[in-house]
């Protein structure tokens, strides 16, 4: 450690002053797991630096260290030519480093202005709400961000929340902005907008460290790419020094199939009439603010069929899926699962009727972070793992271990706490659990969001397998390609209504895209 330090400080003194951040030999262990091993990273001034890697590669861990959330077990962090100890987010902010986490850290019940003024109070300098509002307005117009300062955060879309976080970073005069997977929940339009904002920041002399697992995206936005695999840096070069194929290989460590295998009988309208498993009739749902989010939606899904709902996020998908899952009251209309009316009943009745749910907000609805992998695995059907009210631990562990293998979940084992898993692995765990019981209906909301290519392909294959086994699947996804690869029928949701419907064979990407923007009349 001692030796390392002197060696590297020698190294950094004669390095040029353009380095905003220079990390040397950072390692981090979680018990027996090595999350990061001797990681080096240099971020230059006016650079968009992409940190690329698969699920569980250690990306989040590394930026959490840079933001003072975790302490490194070894290594040196140098900011603007000075070795620093980042003990807390507050320290990080004082060095000009701000992290925008994967899930926006805002208080839902407060307005945008109130949320932002908290950051100031935390830092010890109090500004009056009026000044803050002025500042926010000025910043948002300067960077082309349009947020309503008086809006309640709970009424904002994901991308708007992200913009609030960006403004917060700017108000804190960020020098190095770190974004952890900022694009996973964004539509392509929103993503382009974000990238142009980032370009603006660079022009002002700031730097950006952006995390992603998408190779294409890395090539699109970055100046420099560092590839992280299983906690180790496997390459770090300017963007132009990579070819696409090479980059993919570096990330994955092997070449992989990009498209899910589509089974033979994958053609809609087979002569056999399959039974209807989910029927939604004239459904109307209101959002938290009391406005109508879903208007008169009707859908029928048969066994062995995938219906995809395409649409730009914020057009009622969230409310629709919550209503279907029994987590939100329905204002009008009916929901039937295999003929059973479950309209305003709780999730329990749905689960018993054979309903599986892969939620968008995984940490909130999908898992219990403080419980371990095994306990989360049996969350839906723990009763089937029990006898006389006692849980049969051996059966659970056996079945979890099977699941871990089949779904390629990276974990230390059944007794690891789920909150220690990487985002992608949490999703694989949920999918493994939901598909295990051969459900009649599967509601999958953005099921591959945040997953790396390999895991996304795996999840899609599993959904198709479930379809062949007779499950009826309702897929709500912002990823049009995903909807097109998986669905037998595609419908488009716009402003709470279904505005367009087509079958997979006749679907035209162009028309669908226009329908998503409300440019097609039914």
């Amino acid at each position: 450690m001692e030796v390392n330090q002197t060696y590297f400080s020698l190294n950094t003194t004669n390095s040029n002053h353009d380095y905003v951040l220079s990390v040397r030999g950072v390692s981090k262990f979680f018990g027996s797991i090595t999350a990061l091993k001797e990681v080096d990273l240099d971020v230059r001034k006016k650079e968009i630096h992409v940190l690329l890697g698969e699920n569980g590669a250690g990306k989040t861990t590394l930026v959490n260290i840079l933001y003072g959330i975790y302490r490194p077990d070894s290594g040196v962090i140098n900011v603007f030519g000075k070795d620093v100890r980042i003990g807390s987010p507050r320290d990080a902010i004082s060095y000009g480093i701000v992290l925008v986490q994967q899930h926006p850290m805002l208080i839902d019940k407060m307005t945008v202005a109130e949320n932002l003024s908290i950051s100031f109070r935390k830092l010890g300098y109090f500004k009056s709400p009026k000044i803050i509002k002025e500042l926010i307005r000025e910043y948002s117009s300067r960077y082309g961000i349009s947020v309503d300062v008086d809006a309640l955060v709970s009424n904002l879309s994901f991308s708007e929340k992200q913009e609030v976080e960006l403004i917060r970073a700017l108000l804190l005069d960020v020098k190095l902005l770190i974004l952890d997977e900022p694009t996973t929940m964004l539509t392509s339009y929103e993503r382009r907008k974000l990238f142009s904002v980032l370009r603006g920041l660079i022009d002002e002399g700031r730097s950006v460290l952006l995390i992603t697992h998408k190779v294409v995206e890395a090539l699109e936005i970055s100046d420099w790419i560092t590839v992280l695999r299983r906690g180790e840096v496997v390459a770090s070069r300017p963007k132009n020094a990579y070819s696409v194929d090479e980059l993919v290989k570096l990330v994955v460590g092997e070449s992989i199939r990009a498209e899910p295998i589509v089974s033979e009988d994958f053609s809609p309208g087979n002569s056999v009439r399959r039974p209807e498993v989910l029927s939604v009739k004239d459904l109307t749902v209101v959002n938290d603010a009391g406005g109508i989010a879903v208007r008169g939606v009707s859908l029928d899904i048969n066994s062995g069929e995938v219906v995809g709902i395409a649409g730009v996020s914020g057009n009622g998908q969230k409310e629709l899926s919550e209503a279907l899952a029994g987590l939100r009251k329905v204002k009008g209309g009916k929901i039937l699962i295999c003929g059973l009316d479950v309209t305003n009943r709780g999730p329990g009745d749905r689960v018993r009727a054979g309903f599986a749910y892969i939620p968008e907000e995984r940490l909130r609805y999908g898992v219990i972070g403080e419980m371990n992998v095994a306990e989360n695995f049996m969350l839906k059907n723990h009763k089937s793992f029990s006898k006389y009210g006692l849980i049969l631990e051996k059966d659970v562990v056996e079945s979890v271990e099977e699941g871990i293998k089949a779904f390629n979940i990276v974990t230390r084992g059944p007794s690891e706490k789920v909150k220690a898993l990487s985002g992608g692995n949490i999703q694989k765990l949920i999918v493994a659990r939901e598909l295990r019981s051969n459900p009649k209906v599967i509601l999958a909301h953005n099921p591959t969001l945040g997953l790396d290519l390999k895991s996304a392909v795996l999840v899609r294959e599993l959904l198709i397998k479930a379809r062949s086994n007779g499950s009826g699947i309702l897929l709500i996804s912002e990823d049009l390609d995903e909807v097109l690869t998986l669905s037998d029928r595609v419908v488009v949701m716009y402003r709470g209504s279904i505005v367009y419907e087509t079958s997979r064979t006749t679907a035209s990407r162009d028309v669908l895209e226009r329908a998503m923007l409300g440019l097609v009349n039914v």
Partner: protein
Amino acid sequence: MFELKVLRRYEVSTKLKLTVYTLSFVVGLSAFTLLEVSYGADLYEVISKLLIKPLTSYSDFQVTIRYAIPIGIMSLGLILPYRSGIYSIGAEGQMAVGVIFAAWTAYSLIDLESPYSIVVALLAGTFGGLLWGLIPGLLKGLLNVNEVLITLMLNFTAYSLTDYLIYGPWRSPKAYGFPLTEPIPKSFMMPSYDGIHLTNLIIFVLLTVVMNTVIKKTVLGYQIRAYGLNPTAAYSAGISFLKVALLCLAISGALAGLAGSLQLIAVHGRLGPKSWSVTEGLGYTAIVSAWLARLEPWAVLPSALLLGALVNGGLTIKAVLGQPEGIVSIMNGIILLSIISAEFFINYRLVIKVGR
């Protein structure tokens, strides 16, 4: 320049947790001792009477055990709702209703022979506590009413019910005008061995094992923990909140009722008002004991013993040093406060900067 910073800890080791907990308990105890000293008591005497004698002198230890048993049984019950995120403070009232039910069987089944009489009395008391727990259970499970308010109010209702009985229909004419009931029949009294109620102790230890299994190994325990750790996910997984709320509060009520009836038939033998009451505020002490045990059933054994000693010592201090009536409640409050604030120091780090 003086600056105080509160920083979140993201990684917390077990060692740190343990240290903070122990320290917080010691701090709470010291604060109470200081309070006593400021009342004019002698420091050494307070410590010795409060903590040392109740645990070391045999005759005092018998009394300590006598308190530890009901405190422990009720703590075991309270762990269920606490683990599910329901904050019941109703053990005191449930205990009181248990006492009434047990006494009622004793008065009305005078001819029943021991040991059936004892079993019947205990079952009746348990059932009484269960009923008193079902009320907040239903209100919470069906309507999501605030359980803290309901259970607190039901405690006072149970007190009033007791008062009605001891000043009214059950008042003994032979008690020289005191509002006491008749002693319950001999056949209903639990025998003791050398001042220690072995049966009660065995029941307590067995219940510890049972509750440990319930929490850790059963479907119910799993569902309870799921609700406590992420209610939204537990609900979306289809676990019934009504079932969890109802069972948690009913079982914790039942155990409080059992503790009450044990106290009645083993220790008190009759009902009385305020400081002669069977419950003696132990239902509140049980809350402290449950949290001190960090909601771990097996840890209730030592924590109940410790609080039994403190209640015992507190009462001695009250009598010998002439302290005010509420002294034991004050002690409970201070200790509870300090172990709850330990949670803060476990999750946050204070950094003090002096000078520039």
